[in-house]
């Protein structure tokens, strides 16, 4: 009986891509994230929602140690990726970020050609043996980013010349090109118009086949549309974390209910 539970738990653990326990984040003296524990499943879209300044972006940036680039930021607690502590001293943050890719709020293509934008990651990590293979990676990534048909004739035009929505899909394709296991998205649609947003959302749904996707969003409709699990943050606390349908239809915490019905936030 006892053994059975262990095996069952181990099986459950296998599906967990990232598990965070008692995470605290400080910016100088400010306590930005208070004791957050989350289990993020593989091949699932997890949405973080909450009012501005509630810490959801900060928490997202902890998951690939992007906060390391901010001097005054301090992270405590355990974050495990496939059971390994990513804040362990032996872990190279650079290697980690290759596994946990990130897409930012504002599209930030490099001032290079479209081709070089996509090839940047694979070149750094030596993923291609020759030019033909690199071409293949670029095409595959652009197809996954649902932008191939729009740019295939001008791969050597600068990436900064694309429209906002195209730029963001280019950035997603760029993140996908390094074959990450987890894709973090920090409000990827906030700078986009509704049509581009729809394209990106469709793309997120496709990416779910191969990756675990974590998305921070201000739009509750978007969270409801694209995610399977939703976490609600408020003032640095994780208030509620459950299946998306449950959060949006039958939340347990009164604060969650207030937020999704528009009474706070």
């Amino acid at each position, binding site marked *: 009986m006892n053994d059975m539970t262990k095996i069952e738990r181990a099986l459950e653990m296998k599906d967990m891509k990232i598990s965070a326990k008692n995470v605290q984040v400080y910016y100088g003296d400010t306590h930005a994230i208070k004791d957050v524990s989350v289990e993020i499943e593989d091949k699932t879209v997890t949405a973080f929602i909450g009012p501005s300044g509630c810490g959801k972006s900060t928490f997202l940036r902890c998951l*690939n140690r992007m906060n390391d680039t901010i001097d005054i930021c301090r992270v405590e607690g355990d974050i495990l990726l496939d059971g390994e502590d990513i804040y362990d001293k032996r872990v190279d943050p650079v290697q980690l970020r290759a596994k946990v890719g990130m897409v930012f709020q504002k599209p930030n293509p490099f001032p290079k050609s479209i081709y070089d934008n996509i090839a*940047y990651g694979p070149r750094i990590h030596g993923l291609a043996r020759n030019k033909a293979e690199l071409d293949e990676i670029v095409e595959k990534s652009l197809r996954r980013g649902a932008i191939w048909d729009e740019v295939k004739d001008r791969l050597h035009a600068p990436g900064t010349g694309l429209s906002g929505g195209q730029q963001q899909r280019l950035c997603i394709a760029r993140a996908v090109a390094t074959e990450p296991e987890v894709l973090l998205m920090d409000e990827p649609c906030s700078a986009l118009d509704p049509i581009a947003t729809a394209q990106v959302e469709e793309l997120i749904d496709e990416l779910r086949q191969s990756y675990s996707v974590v998305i921070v969003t201000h739009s509750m409709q978007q969270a409801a549309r694209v995610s399977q699990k939703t976490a609600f943050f408020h003032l640095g606390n994780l208030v509620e974390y459950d299946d998306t349908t449950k959060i949006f239809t039958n939340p347990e915490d009164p604060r969650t209910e207030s937020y999704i019905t528009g009474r706070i936030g």
Partner: protein
Amino acid sequence: MSAFWLLMIILALAAVGFILGRSRAISSVQGDRRQLHSLPNYYGFNVAMLAFVPAVLVLGAWVIIQPMMISSQVSTHIPAALYEDAGQLNLIMSDVKRVAEGLDVAIAQGVMTADEVSQLDTETTDVRAVLGNVGVALGSDVDPSVLKAAQEMRAKTTSGNLFMTIVVLIAAAAGFVMAFMQTHGDFRARNAVEGGVKALLIAAASIAILTTIGIVLSLIFNTISFFGMFPASDFLFGLTWSPEGRGGSEHLGILPLLWGTIYISIVALLVAVPIGLFAAVYLSEYASRTTRAFAKPLLEVLAGIPTIVYGLFALTVVGPLLVNFFGADGLGWMQGARSVMTAGLVMGIMLIPFVSSLSDDIINAVPQAMRDGSYGLGATQSETVKQVVLPAALPGIVGAILLAASRAIGETMIVVMGAGAAARLDLNPFEAMTTVTAKIVSQLTGDSDFASPEALVAFALGMTLFLLTLGLNVLALYIVRKYREQYE
């Protein structure tokens, strides 16, 4: 009355105008300042402005124009037999001015009265001795016609000054009265004063621009007169520079100088660009906040050192050091402490803060989103700098390097002290060479006639230099502007 006292009177009038205008404005609304269109001080300033500005403009114009008009009138009375060309007439006129000033001094010291001065005659009085007694030494005896011209000049100046005093005072009073009369609660004094301020700003801007135009025009005209005396093709394509050529043969070819300028600048840039750029990358990407706050001002101190001090450094430290290695005791490539290498190395050090400070600003202007994007893909810091930050900042960095290059080309003191004065076309960087700027100095500090080609060549050299640095600056600004368009 002298111009100085006239100015004081106008100033006093303006000060009185300020007080009166202000109180008239207040009394026009029975002391209730809320009824005024503008704050009371604006009414005061308006009166002061109208009393002061037109009068001072008249005064300034008069002070400049009157001596010119008088001397051109007086010079027509000098007998044509005394001079052959305009140069000699100029010399006579300066004699006339000196005698006239001497007579003024004599009157001021009480040696003569104004009447005696106007009756003065070279046959009855030794004017030279009289003026010598009051402390004005003359080079030769005074010619009767010169004395006559000087007397005439004095008379015209005196009446002109009187006339000027009257006109200026009338202008001041008219402005004062006009502004005072229009001072009333409804008058828009604030707008009037601000119009005046705007005119002041426009005047300041035009002075800067007009001066530039004036300098360029003087360069152009002197260059043209130089090419009138010396063939342009020999200047532009001549391979020898020897202004005091023997047997009347002069060689004023610019190429050796241009080559020296470019060679030294290249050495300087080879030193300054890598060091400055690496320093900028360290400061903007790697250094902690405290290191940066400490190191950046220190580096910029280099930019504040006068170039003559760099010249000393080149002459006393760098030159001898190079001779130790490359001189007769070492490799034997170098003859003396002065060489292209000496000047180039020191100039490079001078340019480091220039390159690093500009590049640092440009690298900092690369959006953080670029770096985040690169880190987010698992790039290390150096990969990010090399492949994302520097390419994004490249146009700006090129602009910074071009600006540094135009400074290197225009640099004089380091070259004079570090590179020597021999104009030479040579490839050996341990040879002494010289630059365009250094030769301009030596051409104009000699005792040669100012109208000779040896002196006028300085303007042609200056023109060449100006076109060179102007071209570089325009190119740099063009590139920098193009870069700015990318992120805004």
